[in-house]
């Protein structure tokens, strides 16, 4: 298994190698028009783990995340070189349906974005367009339970999702993502609009979900990465402000003893 440059021969590589990566970025460079935003990122995301992507603003964290479910396809002038493998399959290969990818690789955004529909319909939305043939009631309940929201909303499934609190709306969005049975959940700053209590609830949920799903989270909050993730990738812009992978490792190692001094300076708040 190839890891970040300079870290291949670390002992911890053995731990990482035990689980096959669910997503692998291989020499990934990304451009918006002529502007390059990511340079040669090679990184494996382990299955059934929470991996945090951290780094200063503008280092390409969200861009990297959006590559994993082809969300960048929607951005004009997006262009990339290198490869992204999802469970061994080239995500950008010929014949790959980006809509299908987005069912398998779900996404939760910064601000909770429930549809202006009922709680039930929000969760049932994806499966319905997918032509789900099982029992929708059961699927909705199961998804809401997995998102730790069921007990709070079971008596008002027909009420508008917009009446929920921010933290509940975010968990609803997670339930909505879970309803289409993804394998990976991408989270882009999922707690930035939430209060501390709701934030802890989402972090707790990520831990639980990682038993069945692989989670990749972009966060500005170093403490959140420390609390909630198993692995951490640190990205930073170089002199030309093109994002590069500086260090990848177990979160425990990154937070106690990072190898690269730039990682250390960033996570201890000396810059960024």
């Amino acid at each position, binding site marked *: 298994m190839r890891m970040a440059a300079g870290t291949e021969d670390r002992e911890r590589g053995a731990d990482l190698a035990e689980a096959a990566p669910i997503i692998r970025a291989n020499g990934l460079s990304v451009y918006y028009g002529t502007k390059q935003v990511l340079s040669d990122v090679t990184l494996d995301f382990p299955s059934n783990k929470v991996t945090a992507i951290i780094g200063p603003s503008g280092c390409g964290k969200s861009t990297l995340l959006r590559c994993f479910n082809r969300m960048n396809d929607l951005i004009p002038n997006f262009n990339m070189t290198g490869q992204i493998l999802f469970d061994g399959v080239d995500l950008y290969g010929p014949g790959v349906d980006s809509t299908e990818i987005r069912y398998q690789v779900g996404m939760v955004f910064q601000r909770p974005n429930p549809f202006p529909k009922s709680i039930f319909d929000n969760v049932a939305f994806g499966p319905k367009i997918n032509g789900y043939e099982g029992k929708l009631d059961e699927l909705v309940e199961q998804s809401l339970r997995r998102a730790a929201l069921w007990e709070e909303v079971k008596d008002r499934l027909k009420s508008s999702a917009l009446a929920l609190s921010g933290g509940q709306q975010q968990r609803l969005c997670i339930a909505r993502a879970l309803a289409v049975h993804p394998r990976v959940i991408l989270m882009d700053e999922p707690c930035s609009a939430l209060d501390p209590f709701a934030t802890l609830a989402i972090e707790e949920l990520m831990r639980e979900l990682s038993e069945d799903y692989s989670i990749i989270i972009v966060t500005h909050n170093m*403490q959140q990465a420390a609390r909630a993730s198993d692995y951490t990738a640190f990205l930073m812009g170089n002199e030309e402000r093109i994002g590069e992978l500086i260090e990848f490792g177990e979160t425990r190692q990154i937070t*106690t*003893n990072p190898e690269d001094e730039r990682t250390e300076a960033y996570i201890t*708040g*000396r*810059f960024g």
Partner: protein
Amino acid sequence: MVRADFDRNLKTLQDDLISLGSMVEKAVTKSLIGLKNRDLQLSRQVVEEDDYIDQQRYQLEEQCIDLIATQQPIAIDLRTLMAVLHIATELERMGDYAEGIAKISIMMGDEPPLKPLIDIPRMAEKATTMLQHSLDALVNRDEAAALEVRNADDEVDDLYEQIYRELLTYMIDDPSTIQRATYLLWVAHDLERIADRATNIAERVIFLVTGRLTGVNVSQY
């Protein structure tokens, strides 16, 4: 400079730790002078001053807890705070050994020591040098210097063994010396423990610099 205030606090913390270290070093030296010169007033002073060492240790501990609670330190900052916490505890215990030596000196009262004190002051000198070097290694973040402190512990252990054997022969030869021999054996044991704790400090310095937690205390006692 981001986190300038935090950096200042960390610097103050280290300065306070070093000054606690030099207090402890003085206590050890004074306890030996009191013992050797039969200066009971000086011995009593060491006992009294130990309270101040204890207070300083708790103050350092509180400063660490405040910084952990308010700054959420990680990486080098976390290692620094954990190292300071451990080292403060080690220093406080070393102060207790100095106090122990002073108390023995007081217990001996007017009695002359069993034998002229030669190896015991040598042990004390080595142990205090180890303490100085471990604190220098801390200030300079010097892993190699910290490793040397560890090696120096062997010499102290050898001296301790030598003193132990010597005192044992006194006791076998003449049981009436048992009490006075036991006093000196306690002193030697306290010094041996001081040297061990200096190696513990050196281990914390290695942890601070490298992030490696190693049980490198090779003392045979």
